[in-house]
């Protein structure tokens, strides 16, 4: 038996009949809202033009003016494709879920990211860290922070801490001084990064003894028994780098050490550090 075809009398009935023919249910609310708005506008216009008309009659006429709701519903059903509609809904859900997951994973690492961009205020490194941890076991000759700051082609160099220790026996010579120092290099260009000091910063003392860098030792087959200038892995950040360096096997009678970096053809850096402390 066919369903009864009684014409709708109210706006709600009309919208219900239209939406019953539209398969894509998520669009029902928007379709109903638009059709309801239209019929209410029409009803109000009728009431304004015909002051004697009842609300019921005006609404019935507005509903009749829309035509056959099922025919309209079938037309709308052809346009509101459920396959495309559901695909769009699930695509949005997947994108939102992924975005939330990315945020959940990224937020705990936000602090690390900021630190990587700005670099920590201080850094001890492996060598200096070990020295400070076993500070009492060493014969510390000097522990100081040179106040001078050096600049070269956009780089700013400063020594955060320098510790000179004395030992009666060492891997280099029987009696020697050992300079451990933390060098900080800042620069405004994140692409510039810090120079390779660990490999190429060499030193000489005021007595004329030369302490080759690690790169020089490998490149020129230099012996390290008379001392060397090298370091532990650096901490490199976009705008600043920390170098945990040392000059080992320094002649015990030396009073100062000058650090040199001339790998790129000129004496870009020449820093002199007193081995008894001070500037």
């Amino acid at each position, binding site marked *: 038996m066919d369903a009864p075809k009684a014409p709708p009398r109210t706006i709600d009935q009309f919208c219900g009949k*239209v939406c019953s023919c539209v398969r894509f249910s998520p669009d029902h609310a928007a379709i109903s*809202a*638009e059709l309801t*708005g239209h019929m209410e506008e029409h009803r109000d216009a009728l009431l304004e033009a015909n002051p004697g008309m009842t609300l019921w009659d005006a609404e019935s006429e507005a509903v009749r003016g*829309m*035509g056959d709701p099922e025919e309209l519903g079938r037309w709308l059903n*052809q*346009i*509101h494709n459920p396959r495309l509609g559901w695909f769009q809904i699930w695509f949005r859900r997947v994108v939102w879920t992924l975005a939330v997951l990315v945020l959940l994973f990224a937020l705990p690492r936000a602090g690390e990211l900021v630190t990587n961009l700005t670099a920590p205020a201080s850094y001890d490194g492996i060598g200096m860290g070990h020295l400070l941890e076993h500070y009492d076991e060493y014969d510390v000759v000097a522990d100081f922070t040179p106040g001078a700051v050096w600049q070269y082609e956009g780089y700013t160099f400063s020594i955060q801490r320098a510790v000179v220790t004395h030992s009666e026996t060492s891997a280099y010579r029987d009696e020697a001084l050992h300079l451990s120092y933390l060098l900080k290099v800042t620069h405004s260009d994140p692409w510039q990064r810090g120079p390779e000091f660990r490999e190429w910063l060499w030193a000489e003392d005021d007595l004329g003894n030369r302490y080759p860098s690690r790169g020089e030792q490998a490149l020129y087959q230099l012996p390290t028994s008379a001392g060397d200038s090298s370091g532990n892995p650096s901490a490199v950040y976009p705008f600043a780098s920390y170098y945990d360096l040392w000059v080992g096997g320094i002649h015990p009678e030396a009073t100062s050490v000058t650090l040199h970096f001339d790998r790129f053809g000129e004496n870009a850096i020449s820093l002199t550090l007193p081995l008894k402390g001070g500037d």
Partner: protein
Amino acid sequence: MKADKSLLSGSATLLVLSLLSGEDKYGYQMIAELEAKSDHTFSMKEGTLYPILHTLEKEGAVQSYEKAAPTGRTRKYYHITKKGLRLLDTKKEEWTTFSQAVNAVLAGTTPVMA
């Protein structure tokens, strides 16, 4: 699936696009203006307007947005896009050609093609 071609063929799409070419309008406003401008010659079933509008929106010829009316009621306005304006020009040319042909047949002469 495309909307019923018989519904969208003819002059209905041309009339809707033409109504929107001046300013953005909502559904009932378009119906009322169509009846007033045509002196009630075009008095289609009002529901027919919405499959036309929804199809044009799906094709990118119009865009819809909601705006509150002074009465507090939320109205859904339609805005004709550049694509819609190009479609309107095409529809106008088709209509001109068609009406010239019809007039020529009625007058018993050979139509002058544009």
